[in-house]
């Protein structure tokens, strides 16, 4: 049986009804990985032994339902006790965390089975996984192309049926952009919805962990596991988590959709735009209405992001200094030497670029002009969305300006790389939730529809996404590998 092709909720039913054993499932998943991983390069490490041990335990114990017994891939910037967490960086190449991230604890208590750690752009900085210090993950739809980033390993693993589910992290689009490129579902939850404790920080005020899945139902189920208030994360919100499965209703009658023209104009490829317009027509057919609006602050989003994110990163990444853990240079005549050489050898060019930008933006004399100003613009962007949600239920846009680009295409042009996140970045700045779902193909490459909602209203996103998915079933199309 090709179990690896199934969704998590399908597998869960089979486990519960004892159609299959968990060991069978795990073996099938690793067989799939064995056969396609050499083409995809989604994983930094696999934890087969522990996974099989856990599967045996569960087979003996029985399954409580939910996602008990379901394998999951974890982005390699989420701490796993006893298993390397590298952030795809040389500086943490051999780092084994002494503790589990809160989300990993939650997966474990649900009875889920981590199968391995997935590749990413170093410290989640990038849009293609090409900034990984170890390897570039390939897009399962066309292995000449990138899977997107930074959660490219997670998205590719799900798209290639190497894992039914994966966790990613999203700072400026790092879940949604690769989900779009790989034709899977990716959700960035509301800031504060999922605990960041144990997520290696890139930009603390923007980072959020979320699911990458084969369909909307799986995303809702995984959110049921990971969305929980956590006292260990002071930015975690103490709000009740609903049962997201209950939001999975095909009904968008009377739904009011806003479409910001700033995300449908210049820089967006024609075929992408076409796919989005078709999706909007389907919503219209199902009883929703849509209207073009203007969110003028969006044009400052990219500039704002590239002040705030690097500023926070420059401070968050200070700790990789060779003193307490991680890489330490052999060239260390004195303390300063050790610091300089450790960081010179340990960080890749994109990480260095952002540390330098961030350090500059926070420097005395520049702070007001850059960081403080950026925070003010951030408030404006948030207000623009808040106002929009007074009149509309959701906002829609393409997730990315174009389908997946070729490996190497944008490596030497960081600005054009940054532009591929133009539609996803404002959402992190506003702190609101957004989901990317497949909405068609451009020359056999998936196109993603981004649906944005009110803070802490993931339920509406699930309902709206589920309705479209049921109508179109783009999720059923698989890459030929």
């Amino acid at each position: 049986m090709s179990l690896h092709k199934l969704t998590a909720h399908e597998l869960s039913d089979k486990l519960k009804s004892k159609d299959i054993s968990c060991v069978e499932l795990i073996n099938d998943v690793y067989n799939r990985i064995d056969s396609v991983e050499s083409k995809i390069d989604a994983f930094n490490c696999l934890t087969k032994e522990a996974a099989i041990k856990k599967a045996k335990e569960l087979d003996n114990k029985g399954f409580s339902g939910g996602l008990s017994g379901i394998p999951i891939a974890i982005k390699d910037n989420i701490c796993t006790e006893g298993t390397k967490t590298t952030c795809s960086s040389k500086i943490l190449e051999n780092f084994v965390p002494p503790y589990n991230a809160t989300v990993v604890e939650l997966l474990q208590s649900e009875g889920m089975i981590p199968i391995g750690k997935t590749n990413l752009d170093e410290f989640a900085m990038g849009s293609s996984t090409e900034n990984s210090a170890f390897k570039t993950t390939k897009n399962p739809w066309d292995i000449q192309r990138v899977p997107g980033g930074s959660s490219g390993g997670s998205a590719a693993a799900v798209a290639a049926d190497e894992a039914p589910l994966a966790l990613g992290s999203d700072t400026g689009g790092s879940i949604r952009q690769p989900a779009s490129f790989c034709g899977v579902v990716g959700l960035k939850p509301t800031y504060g919805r999922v605990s960041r404790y144990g997520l290696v920080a890139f930009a603390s005020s923007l980072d959020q962990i979320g699911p990458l899945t084969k369909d909307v139902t799986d995303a809702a189920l995984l959110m049921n596991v990971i969305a929980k208030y956590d006292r260990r994360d002071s930015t975690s919100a103490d709000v009740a988590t609903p049962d997201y499965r209950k939001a999975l209703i095909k009904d968008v009658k009377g739904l009011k959709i806003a479409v910001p023209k700033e995300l449908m104009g210049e820089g967006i490829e024609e075929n992408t735009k076409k796919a989005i317009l078709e999706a909007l027509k389907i919503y219209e057919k199902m009883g929703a209405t849509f209207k073009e609006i203007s969110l003028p602050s969006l044009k400052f989003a990219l500039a704002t992001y590239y002040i705030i994110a690097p500023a926070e990163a420059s401070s968050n990444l200070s700790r990789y200094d060779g003193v307490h853990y991680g890489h330490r240079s052999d060239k260390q005549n004195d303390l300063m030497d050790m610091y300089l050489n450790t960081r010179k050898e340990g960080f890749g060019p994109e990480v260095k670029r952002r540390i330098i930008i961030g350090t500059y933006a926070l420097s005395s004399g520049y702070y007001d002009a850059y960081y403080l100003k950026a925070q003010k613009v951030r408030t404006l962007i948030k207000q623009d969305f808040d106002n929009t949600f007074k009149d509309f239920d959701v906002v829609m846009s393409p997730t990315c300006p174009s389908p997946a680009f070729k490996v190497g295409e944008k490596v030497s042009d960081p600005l054009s790389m940054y532009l591929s996140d133009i539609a996803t970045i404002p959402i992190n700045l506003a702190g609101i939730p957004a989901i990317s779902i497949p909405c068609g193909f451009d020359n056999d490459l998936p196109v993603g529809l981004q649906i944005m909602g009110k803070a802490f209203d993931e339920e509406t996103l699930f309902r709206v996404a589920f309705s479209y998915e049921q109508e179109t079933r783009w999720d059923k199309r698989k890459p030929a590998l």
Partner: protein
Amino acid sequence: MNFETVIGLETHAQLQTESKMFCSCPTKFGNDPNSNICPVCTGQPGSLPVINEKAIRLAVKTALALNCKINNESVFARKNYFYPDLPKDYQISQFEMPLAEHGYLEIEVGGQIRKIGITRVHLEEDAGKLVHKGSAGIKGADYSLVDLNRTGTPLMEIVSEPDIRTPEEARIFMEELAHILRYLEVCDAKLEEGSMRCDANISIRETGETKLGVKTELKNMNSFKAVQKALEKEETRQKEVVSEGGKIFQQTLLYDEATSSVHPMRSKEGSHDYRYFPDPDLLPLYVDEKTIEEVRSSAGELPMDKFKRFLSQYGIPGQDITVLIESRHTADFFEETAKISGEPKLSANWIIGDVSAYLNANDLSLKDSKLSAAALSELITLVKNSTVSGNSAKKILGEMMKTGKKAKELVEAMGATQISDEAALVEIAKKVVAANPQSVEAYKNGKEAAIKHLIGQAMKETKGRANPQVIEGLIKKELC
């Protein structure tokens, strides 16, 4: 030229919390290196800080005692700099929006009350400890070891306005501040042990000038005396430099206690830009009015107010009150003893005298001793109604403090009850007079003091249990 000295003090006080500022590790000292640590205080990737509410309450309590305005919203910021004792390579502190501001502390200098402004009170985390092999500092060391037990210990920074005018005032300010911190049970305030640390900024200017002169910063003053000494040295140096037509340069100076002199600190590489910005891992801290009121009422009466009240209520000397209000526990203990025994003066004398002596000799605090106010009151009453002599009472007190036994119990067990019965003592009086003809002779020749020797002998005979007044009367009768 006449100079005026301008001094401002920056004090760091370690808060007496059970756990660290941003994690639940214990703040205990003296454990093995790197034993009180966790992912948070060692700055592991992905770990996040959570504010210690007890620390906030202690800081609010202090700020209220220093007459500060508590900011309902304050912000923790990151102070970025690289050093091996700082695992995150930034310190979480407060910068633009501190917990409290605009306060003052009144101190008494030469009989005058001086009001010293408090600029701000804020919270931050302490760094770890480095141990260098083969050198005093990290430069030139063969290797250095890092102990992170202290990392993340809550520190409260109290910054004064440049209102202090003499090194003596600076010392008195520090002493009074330390007193308040101890009294509030916020910090044990030991400069010698580093639980309280002080940096001083000092400058001079021509009398009448309102602009501040160029300041120097003094560090490494490990006692109250050292604060005054170091500032005196630097004050003298600055005056000499300026008198000779020289200029003062901004620099950091270290005080050397052994030679009682100040030396410039080796300059760090370049000047620091700490790149402060609000810590995105922590939301702004809200302290609402309800919490402030709760803390205010739990803080109770402040030392200065207590001093005034004791003076009028109990009529005991000011010097004695200063000792009694050294800690809140001692002050409460005194008041309870005074109330039960009805003898404030005797209560004060016992606490300041024999109780303190016992505590000092045994390196104990009153809190840790087994003495209760009720027990001490009982002893005071026993002495007052002449059941025991003063001398016996001292011995009994020692035993009480050691064992926690009651005074009456001990008196009986030790057979220390005072003998006041004339019938029981008359034989003793006769015996003493008969055995000491020389003293009897002297007394009869008008040497009044000779009777002291006879009383002493009688006490010896009764192992101190004779009532001195009764035995004196009996001896005098014999001598007639």
